[in-house]
């Protein structure tokens, strides 16, 4: 049991549950995202349409949720993969640190883009 090896007593059951719940949200969000982005080149890829979406409060709320849950789902997934390895404590702490710091940095970048308009 690798998680005992680096001294954590957490089983990870809450992460497991949240990984499923965010995953179910992302299935629906991703289908909508793909239809919107590829319905026509205009809807997805023009500056005016993108700014118009980010200026709308409901779209803004949707994108903030999407960025937050998407990043969390991805990084929690990476961490759950890493936990399968028998990591030494220093390596586990370093990799966890990289995940948290880079995750927060890109979350701030994404949120500041969404809130800019």
């Amino acid at each position, binding site marked *: *049991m*690798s998680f*005992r*090896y680096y001294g954590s007593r957490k089983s990870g059951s809450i992460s497991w549950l949240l990984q*499923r719940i965010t*995953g*179910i949200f*992302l*299935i629906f969000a*991703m289908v909508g995202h*793909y239809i919107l982005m*590829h319905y026509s080149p205009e809807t997805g*890829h*023009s*500056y*005016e349409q*993108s*700014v118009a979406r*980010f200026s709308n409060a409901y779209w803004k709320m949707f994108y903030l949720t999407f*960025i937050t849950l*998407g*990043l969390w789902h*991805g*990084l929690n*997934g*990476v961490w759950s*993969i890493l936990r*399968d*390895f*028998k990591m030494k404590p220093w390596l586990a702490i370093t990799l966890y640190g990289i995940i948290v710091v*880079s995750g927060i940095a*890109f979350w701030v*970048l*994404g949120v*500041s*883009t969404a809130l*800019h*308009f």
Partner: protein
Amino acid sequence: MKVAKTGEGYFKLVASYKKETGGWAWIIHRISGLALTAYIYVHIYALSTLTKGKEAFDAEMALFQKPLFKVLEWLLFAFVLAHTLNGIRIVLVDFGKGSFYHKKAFAYLMIIGIIAFLVMGYFIFSHEIHQAFAGLL
């Protein structure tokens, strides 16, 4: 609890397992998940150009219309499909009675995925496909 060292590498160990449907689904899910996590970083970074004004954003979007990026986008869709469809199977196994039919579910979901992948390929390359067949008609 002291964990005994096996002396075997992780990848050698995984490769030595007898893999059936679930094993392959597990591997596909991990690889696509890592790729998608890397992509979401790139995606957030690329879209931050929006704050730099219309010209910078339009120049970037023009770059993404190039054939190389179209192919990459198509491959990205393959990862998205594999991860999304297998994710449905995982939710069914964990929250429903999926363990009774997960092999069939995987087969059907992957067939749906391949069809969706080809349909998306038609949409992405429709201009090129029409040009290629224009000479024949």
